[in-house]
């Protein structure tokens, strides 16, 4: 069976006054029905831009999707016009954003914002939409949903606003829920509530989820597959257990080492990653991580490695084997990589 979503060689750039920003540089991945995919990376690594590109939410100009295909149930979303995309957004693929205060309209009641979508998208009557909206609010755990229906966003706490956003995203029964750092602005006890809610809903509704985060902890308990992004490239991907137990890209390795753990006493100094991520205006010719990498060899500064399988279902884009520090075991770049396009 074809995957539910297949992203092929997606490349997004932004034209700015200073030059062309290479935000997403040829990323490919597939998403099976019912799967939860975690996309991890730091600010500016392209994780948000990559999903906004899928949703057709990149402002063009200045943005431009210069290459790639996004196959949803076999059809390329990048070829759809705006009107067709409006049917996809919300009904097929829905999104929850980081800051629920800026994504909710402050002068409309929360209930109205949910029911409006139901009237417009699903053609419900006002009364049906109201009934369904209250059901949705109750489903995401808003207490006294029928009374809170008439509340304005400012009367909700941060956690409740995010619950309302999830209710809104689920209102048209989408196949895929994309959550872009949905818990970053929330406290940890509220984050635990939201993660718990998404897990429950995922089971109940059989939803496919893409969860974007910079927090390697949240993803550990939630995702089945993980993609690690750096400077607009996918540098590593695999099953969640393999990525954490056996990271094969120096960036993933360094990130995991720099994290202190709440369940362990630590006496040692934290491992650091020196320097800063590269400027996306002018990416270096080789591997984007080479300048900060402890393992870098000469080749890393000249050629950007492609994703290659390092184990079953586990790929990394690195010339060096982090276990042996050897760089000669990697296939020459002439070997065609069937797996993934990581062309520059």
């Amino acid at each position, binding site marked *: 069976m074809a995957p539910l979503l297949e992203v092929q060689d997606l490349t997004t750039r932004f034209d700015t006054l200073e030059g062309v920003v290479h935000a997403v540089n040829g990323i490919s991945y597939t998403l099976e029905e019912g799967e939860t995919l975690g996309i991890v990376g730091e600010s500016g690594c392209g994780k948000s831009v990559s999903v906004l590109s899928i949703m057709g939410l990149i402002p063009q100009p200045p943005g431009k999707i210069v290459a790639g295909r996004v196959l949803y149930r076999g059809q390329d979303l990048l070829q759809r016009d705006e009107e067709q995309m409006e049917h996809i957004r919300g009904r097929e693929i829905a999104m929850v954003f980081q800051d629920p205060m800026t994504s909710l309209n402050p002068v409309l009641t929360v209930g109205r914002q949910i029911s409006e979508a139901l009237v417009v998208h699903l053609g419900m009557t006002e009364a049906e939409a109201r009934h369904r909206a209250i059901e949705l609010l109750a489903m995401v755990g808003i207490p006294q949903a029928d009374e809170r229906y008439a509340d304005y966003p400012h009367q909700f706490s941060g*956690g409740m606003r995010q619950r309302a956003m999830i209710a809104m995203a689920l209102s048209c029964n989408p196949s895929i829920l994309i959550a872009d750092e949905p818990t970053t602005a929330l406290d940890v006890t509220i*984050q635990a509530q939201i993660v718990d809610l998404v897990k429950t809903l995922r089971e109940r509704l059989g939803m496919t989820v893409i969860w974007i985060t910079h927090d390697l*902890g949240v993803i*550990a*308990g939630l995702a089945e597959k993980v993609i690690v992004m750096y400077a607009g490239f996918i540098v590593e991907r695999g099953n969640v257990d393999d990525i954490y137990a056996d990271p094969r890209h120096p960036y993933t390795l360094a990130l995991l080492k720099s*994290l202190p*753990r709440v369940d362990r*006493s630590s006496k040692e100094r934290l491992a650091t990653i*020196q320097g800063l991520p590269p400027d996306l205006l002018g990416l270096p010719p080789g591997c984007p991580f080479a300048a900060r990498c402890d393992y870098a060899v000469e080749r890393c500064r000249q050629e950007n490695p492609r994703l290659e399988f390092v184990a079953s279902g586990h790929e990394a884009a690195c010339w060096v084997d982090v276990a042996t520090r050897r760089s000669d075991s990697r296939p020459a770049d002439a070997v065609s990589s069937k797996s993934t396009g990581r062309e520059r």
Partner: protein
Amino acid sequence: MNGDGVLVQVEGLKKHFPITRGIIIQRQVGAIRAVDGVTFDIYRGETLGLVGESGCGKTTTGRTILQLYRPTAGRVIFDGIDLTAVKGGELRRTRQRIQMIFQDPYASLNPRMTIARIISEPLRTHKLASGKEQVERVQELLQIVRLNPRFINRYPHEFSGGQRQRIGVARALASDPEFIVCDEPISALDVSIQAQVVNLLEDLQDELGLTYLFIAHDLSMVRHICNRVAVMYLGKIVELAQKDELYDHPIHPYTQALLSAVPVPDPPLERKRQRIILEGDVPSPADPPPGCHFSTRCPVAGKICSEEEPPWRDVGGGHFVACHSRG
């Protein structure tokens, strides 16, 4: 702790912000009880962590200790000097020995000032150096925080978040303080940059013998950097202990819930972990519940919890907790 005694004593500290009505004739109709009676000591040379969720009063506690807010009640004794009782010149002289590092490195540096002016501000305020001496001191401070001294005439926008936070640290160090309140110094930074700043703070503590109050909501980082940790909830400290004692044997139901909510980057363990999911949200500090402030969300609350405030008890080994049901 390499301490030789208490540097800062906080006793029954309260900070209530008035809620007023009326435009011309303002009358007070209530109070936000941001800090509602906290007591703790900070030992010389240690890092005391102050953790809790947004709105629990941890930042207000830090600012009230510095007398940036005058407390509603209680005392702050710094090295034998009661900061709440001194004013004017004496307060200013004492403040030289206390500094602060702020959360947001984008908002806490004036964009119109050069780095030299930003870092030398404490030197001018306290009349510690001028002219060539001042420039040399700024260059020295930049070196101390591992920045290039040639950056002296640049502006904040030319630096990354991590570099800006180093500039904030250099400014805090300018007056040679003994005690620094670090108010969420790393929470605005990316993961790979956080470790750089934390290591710098640790090195500076060793080199300069600094004492820190480290305010944060990242419990993993607090476990790494602190010696002792205090947990705050709605204006009160509910538990305080040596860090490993607190993280391995939490007593207060809130501490237990908070720690269980922190995700761990270890998939098999994370899938198995039992979370204590708290119901609802933190109540408003304008109208905290009677008795124990946590009683409305507490999974083990009894009748007494909503009637009487739990006493602050020593359960041994410097582990303190305020709970009727546990310990």
